């Protein structure tokens, strides 16, 4: 932070042409912007005001989902949050299940948590990698993206796809855990644990990284609460809040895990908290693999609607086929909300049904959208070179914010 502190009220009155300031348009085609534009007012090297201009990848997911059958929203919400598809999928399905009044069986709950935790690791690795390339370290970028690979392979084994899994459906999950999954997962977890030490040496405890991130982009606890930031960024500011603990879903009630909380709220804490959450996810995956109960992976009232061919497929391949009911889901009138702790933070769904074959109102808020105040409030007063550090540390994913 510079000694000269600009307050936001003063910054808001600046003329957009900026006679006194350099106005930088960072993005939408800029290596350090992603699919968005940051309009930055600079006084010398100091940022006076940042105006995030989002919406370049606005994909009208709400509009599309309100004009389609209920089940068709599953792939749509996934495509918005590509590094983190399971959570979008899960969150939507939870809301629909609340409307339908279906409760998935315990094995399906565990499988949901398993997929979610594997996905959380890949999502955090994605974030660490992007943070790396924003600060100039191509090694961490490549490492993190490479180390997603074993986890993506695991998910491929489980779901048959690498990114867009469409794994979770109302009432359960679509595929059961295949043979050999547990052994492979254990190998991958051991690999990741060993690699985290490498990350520590070359990235987390690298003096250059520490110089770039410690006391940069400080989000104080009170600000974090009043600005409503989410996820690891919130916990880095010292707020103990995790949807998995406070609004438990899937199998998180039964799992034993800690929620890492830091207190400084700077970019370095936000980096550390992601590393810690990877460790917790590894711990949770071990528990799930150990404790996973036997049984069906789909709710009974859906299983009973399967025809004999489908039941045979289910017994042989442990694959759930859709009864015709799935196409014509018509939840009773009412509204439901659901919240899920995704890799970047909390996804919120608000769905209103009028008993029709389409959702009447489909509203969702993604974590990146709620992390936007980092640009408008935290970046002010820092140097231009701190902007990528702040951007990278909050793990902002523009398509996710635009929806």
């Amino acid at each position, binding site marked *: 932070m510079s000694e000269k502190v600009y307050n936001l009220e003063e910054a*808001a009155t600046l003329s957009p042409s900026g006679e006194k300031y350099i106005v930088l348009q960072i993005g939408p085609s800029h290596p350090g912007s992603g699919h968005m534009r940051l309009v930055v007012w600079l006084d010398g090297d100091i940022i006076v005001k940042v105006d995030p201009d*989002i919406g370049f990848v606005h994909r*009208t997911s709400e509009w599309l989902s309100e004009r389609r059958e209920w089940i068709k929203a599953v792939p749509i919400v996934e495509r918005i949050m590509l590094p983190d598809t399971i959570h979008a999928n899960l969150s939507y399905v939870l809301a629909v299940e609340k409307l339908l009044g279906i409760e998935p069986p315990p094995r399906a709950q565990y499988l949901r948590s398993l997929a979610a935790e594997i996905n959380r690791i890949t999502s955090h690795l994605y974030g660490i990698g992007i943070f790396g390339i924003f600060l100039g370290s191509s090694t961490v970028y490549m490492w993190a993206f490479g180390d997603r690979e074993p986890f993506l392979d695991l998910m491929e084994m489980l779901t048959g796809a690498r990114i867009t899994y469409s794994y979770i459906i109302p009432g359960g999950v679509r595929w059961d855990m295949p043979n050999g999954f547990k052994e492979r997962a254990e190998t991958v977890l051991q690999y990741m644990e060993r690699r985290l030490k490498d990350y520590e040496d070359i990235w987390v405890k690298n003096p250059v990284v520490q110089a770039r991130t410690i006391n940069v982009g400080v989000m104080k606890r009170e600000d974090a609460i009043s600005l409503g930031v989410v996820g690891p960024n*919130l916990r880095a500011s010292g707020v103990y809040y995790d949807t998995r603990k406070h609004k438990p879903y899937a199998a998180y009630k039964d799992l034993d895990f800690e929620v890492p909380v830091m207190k400084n709220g700077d970019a370095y804490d936000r980096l550390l908290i992601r590393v810690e959450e990877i460790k917790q996810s590894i711990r949770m995956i071990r528990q799930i693999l150990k404790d996973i109960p036997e049984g069906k992976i789909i709710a009974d009232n859906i299983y009973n609607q399967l025809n004999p061919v489908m039941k045979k497929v289910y017994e042989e391949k442990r694959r759930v086929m859709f009864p015709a009911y799935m196409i014509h889901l018509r939840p009773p009138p009412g509204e439901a909300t659901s919240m899920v702790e995704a890799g970047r933070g909390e996804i919120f769904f608000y769905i209103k049904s009028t008993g029709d074959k389409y959702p009447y109102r489909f509203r969702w*808020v993604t974590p990146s*959208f709620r992390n936007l*105040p980092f640009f408008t409030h935290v970046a002010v007063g820092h140097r231009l070179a701190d902007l990528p550090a702040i951007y990278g540390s909050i793990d902002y994913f523009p398509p996710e914010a635009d929806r």
Partner: protein
Amino acid sequence: MNLKEELSRISQAVEIDEKKSHYKVSVEDPSKLIKAAQDLKSLGFDHVVSVTGVDYPDKIEVIWHVSSYSVEELKSINLALSVSVKKPEPRKEYDPNKRALVLKRPPVRVPSLVSVWPSGAFNEREAFEMFGIIFEGHPDLRYLMLPEDFYEAWPLRKDFQHEKMKVFLE
């Protein structure tokens, strides 16, 4: 703390279904909204999760979903604060660009709660451009995501006509 009691003090219309974790406080009069929001904030609901509208044939319901980071008992609760405003009648107006009469759907007005919950700022901007809800008192009510040619289109209202979109659909 008995949540139901506290909430019913704020407004008469309170729906609570703990099994479905559904909590909703409806305010009849938009002018009482800020008071209700302040009361909720003093209860401990300190941040806005989502601000959205729901378009009905005759009215628009504006919903603030709020939750708490600071009060331990409220962390598991996601509360909806809703207010309904009647939609003004759409009227035909001459559009010099199209050289024709076009149907104008006037926006509705509700007080902005940014002064109470700063975390709703971006959400309210989104609700403004999607539903045509003017949040009075919002410090920076601009279009957020939509481009300029969607000016006053209010795309998430049910009567939105998407002539331009046909090209993209097929």
